[in-house]
């Protein structure tokens, strides 16, 4: 987080290099399923889908963590609850019952995703309103505490699978598309991811984003010029929770399975690692970070069962010897300029 960040945060006029890079990224992501199919590697499509879903979650976390300076160690809560929204709605739909005697189930993606966003937001509002009374390490730990509470809550809910989780027999439906098809689902996720990144880009460049950056750098100064930091931080935390809930809903659809694993603290850690690996407080960093971690994990797992022994030192080297994660590394290598 550089000191001059605020001067760069306002809607950046992208340089030609950066615009070219974005264009190449977009073309690459759209062409990817056809390309890997032509190369005879169709198994790479689900992998790319997973990258996109994690990128949404990590980018949302980054809004709180990187841009808002709120180091949340509990974002798995929103991720998992988003997943459970899909799972519970589907279960209710199959049983033809009412959730809590009020809410009918559904398997329509256009309903489950907004529901996950809504619930993620409400949860973030509750947790954030309480947690933002603390800061620093205490904030890290209290967000972790809330996530752990939810983790154990879902473990003990036998009606929804408890420890074992529950399977979702079919992916949610969307306009009669065959969502079971990997490529179709990839494009659904790509569309959602594009919308999320667009929204985040607008938010970061807006007045709200400027205030947020200001609060991160010097909360007292912002308070002195008449801005109440608490409300802005809470708003950012809620938006962050909404995005992470959305990612969780997509992940539940992707896996056709939800379990308390999605809420485990290591998931919060993983999301954090993606953000740090990609570059804290950068727009596209989380995408690179998610891609790096997911791909690295997949490749290393195929090599050896002791893949963590290779991943660990790589992460260590990244922390010790690169500043600003992969995005920072790209910048120094001169591949496009990113806004900070």
């Amino acid at each position, binding site marked *: 987080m550089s000191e001059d960040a605020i001067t760069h945060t306002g809607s950046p006029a992208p340089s030609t290099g950066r615009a070219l890079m974005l264009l190449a990224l977009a073309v690459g992501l759209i062409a990817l399923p056809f390309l890997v199919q032509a190369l005879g590697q169709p198994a790479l499509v689900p992998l790319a889908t997973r990258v996109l879903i994690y990128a949404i979650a990590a980018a949302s976390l980054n809004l709180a963590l990187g841009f808002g300076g709120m180091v949340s160690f509990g974002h798995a809560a929103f991720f998992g609850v988003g997943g459970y929204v899909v799972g519970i709605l589907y279960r209710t739909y199959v049983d033809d019952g009412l959730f809590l005697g009020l809410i009918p189930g559904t398997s329509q993606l256009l309903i489950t995703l907004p529901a996950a966003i809504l619930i993620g937001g409400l949860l973030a509002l509750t947790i954030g309103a309480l947690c933002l009374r603390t800061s620093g390490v*205490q904030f890290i*730990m209290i967000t972790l*505490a809330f996530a752990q509470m939810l983790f*154990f809550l879902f473990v003990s809910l036998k009606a929804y699978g408890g420890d074992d989780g529950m399977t979702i027999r079919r992916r949610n439906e969307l306009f009669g598309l065959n969502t079971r098809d990997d490529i179709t689902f990839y494009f659904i996720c790509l569309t959602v991811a594009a919308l999320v990144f667009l929204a985040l880009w607008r938010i970061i460049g807006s007045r709200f984003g400027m205030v947020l950056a200001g609060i991160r750098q010097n909360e007292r100064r912002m308070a002195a010029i008449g801005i109440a930091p608490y409300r802005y931080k809470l708003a950012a935390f809620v938006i962050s929770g909404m995005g992470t809930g959305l990612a969780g809903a997509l992940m539940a659809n992707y896996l056709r399975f939800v379990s308390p694993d999605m809420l485990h603290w290591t998931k919060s*850690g993983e999301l954090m690692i993606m953000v740090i690996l990609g570059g804290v407080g950068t727009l596209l960093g989380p995408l690179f970070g998610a891609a790096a971690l997911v791909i690295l994990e997949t490749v290393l797992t195929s090599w050896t069962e002791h893949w963590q022994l290779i991943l660990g030192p790589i*992460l260590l080297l990244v922390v010790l010897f690169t500043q600003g994660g992969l995005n920072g590394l790209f910048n120094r290598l001169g591949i496009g300029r990113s806004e900070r």
Partner: protein
Amino acid sequence: MTLVLEQLLNGLQFGVMLFLLAAGLTLIFGIMGVINLAHGSLYMVGAYAAAFAAAQTGSVIIAILAGLAAAALVGMAMELFVLRRLYARDHLDQVLATFALILIFNQSVTLLFGRQPLFVSVPPALNGSVELLPGLTYPIYRLIIIAVGLLVALGLYLLINRTRIGMLVRAGATHREMVRALGVDIRLLYTAVFGLGALLAGLAGLMAGPILAVQVGMGEQILIMTFVVVVIGGVGSIRGAFFGALLVGLVDTVLRAFLPGLLRQVMTGSEADALGAGLASMGIYMLMAVVLLVRPKGLFPANV
């Protein structure tokens, strides 16, 4: 009544174990400002080294020494090669680096000892129970753990409050720059404090061996609870770590022991067990949330 007393003793025993870990963690955090997620790995290293030495030699003394030495040496090496470079960085980098260390430690131990948990038997001399009160018998080994934990607490209190090193530690926690400016070799102090923290973690690990299974991942389970203790007690405060650990140990043990039984009176058995176990696990996190909301700096904040 004896059941309640027994559970209270169990809670106390769990509490002092947590204290051994929390004391190191809170010192490391309070003085160096480092969040060390890999502290649980030192606990694991201590447990494995002691279990291995015990299996090889059969000697309790050698097992204890091996556990302590391994944890302290690994801890100091960790400080020397990794954490030393992270003091000036923000918490995020520390979290990522120490998370990476967890991966490395867990995999190395898996590689060396396999995935099967090791089972360690209680040393024969300490095997058995004593009757504390009429009708209340309690294992000697657990009583020894409680005693060791309380002795360490007393020792730490004396070390921190009555010795020159303790004075430097206290000064380092509140006015780091000033201590450095006065010509104290702060790097040596840091390594020493880290070694002490690692030693205590190793002590907790080697004592946990005979009660719990020695397995990969044992460190992370207890690490999260240790963080809860540190935050409840107040970051950087040994006194806070002590009372926080006892509180968390007692609350967790008592909830686990009695909540399912209470719930069973209002609902069916299996559901009550599941919900009771879930709520009992949530208990300490609720405790922590409440404490932080009422006193955001913890119960015994270090720098007031």
